[in-house]
């Protein structure tokens, strides 16, 4: 993927994540202010198709966004070769994707 596409992917993912972050923060505020226990939260999320889609999308966007950002940081702050930078950024993105989807599965799957 060329530089421009990666740039647009990062900016686009940031724009799409904004409303998701707002909802996420509201959920956190609600859960903590209402004093919900882990069991209460899981009771609401398990088997919920809507929360499953919501957080899967969140994880996909965050993984792409962070990987592109890390690639730029490596470009500007390390002397690594282009292939090494790309490999690290892709690995980082895949790790986030894997961990994120695993977390989503843990709270959503019945």
């Amino acid at each position, binding site marked *: 993927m*060329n*530089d*421009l*596409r990666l*740039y*647009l992917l990062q*900016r686009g993912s940031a724009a799409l994540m904004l409303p998701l972050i707002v909802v996420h923060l509201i959920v956190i505020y609600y859960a903590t202010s209402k004093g919900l226990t882990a069991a209460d939260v899981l009771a609401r999320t398990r088997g919920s198709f809507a929360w499953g889609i919501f957080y899967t999308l969140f994880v996909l966007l965050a993984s792409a966004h962070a990987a592109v950002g890390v690639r*730029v940081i490596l*470009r*500007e*702050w390390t002397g690594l070769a282009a292939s090494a930078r790309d490999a690290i950024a892709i690995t980082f993105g895949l790790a986030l994707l894997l961990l994120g989807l695993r977390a989503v599965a843990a709270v959503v799957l019945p």
Partner: protein
Amino acid sequence: MIFGYLRFHARSNSFNIGLGLRQHTADGMAGPATGESRDTIEVHLWRGQETGDYQRFEVPAQANQTILDVVTYIQRTLDPTVAYRFACRVGVCGSCAMTVNGRPRWTCRTHVSKVLEDGKVEIGPLANLPVIKDLATDMRVFFEKWQAAQGRFTPSQTRQDPIPQMPPTERISIDKAIECINCGVCYAACDTVRWNDKYLGPAALNRAWTLVNDKRDAGQADRLRAVTAEGGCQSCHTHQSCADHCPAQLNPTESIAGLKRRAMEAYLRGEL
């Protein structure tokens, strides 16, 4: 050149009859010197290339003295081996930019009285460019990037065609960015240039933006590809150092943001 100078000053609202008598406010040059008057200035001047050291000189203080005056005094009176570059002395040619007390400036229009710190001033070569000797940098890479950004007009018509009309509303976006004097101050001030040697830099991208807005130009597709390749406009972090330091008070960051928008629009249309 004189016409360019007049225009330049008319744009910066500091034009008056006695050319150059009134100073440019971008570098804080207007107004009398403040603080106690001094007989001499302590100057620390870079000597060497990439490696070297600052050499101390004592230079007689004078009213309305510029940094370029100081360097010229040193070269002509104290040490003829000092290397530096200048041409017009009036803020048009863009030759004399140097680092003054850590900040890139056009030295011919930077008054000593406004940059002196405890009676001292440190003068070095521009950052982000290879040093040839002392205060003279090798600006080839800077101009090569102008070429790489397709910063040149590509004609779309012949002399037989009628002169195309451009409404003022279209011309405004070009006018805002056109008065670059190629001094390299923005290039030296840019963090992204320092971090990424492939980055085209604020001046080249600013120039490309003026052409992107010129409907007479026939090289738009190539230019947009050039400014979105690796090191193109998308590399800019919007730190705005270029806009902050530009002696001509241009805003290359705004131009680069414009290029980013055009690039996105072209991409969505499937042209990139």
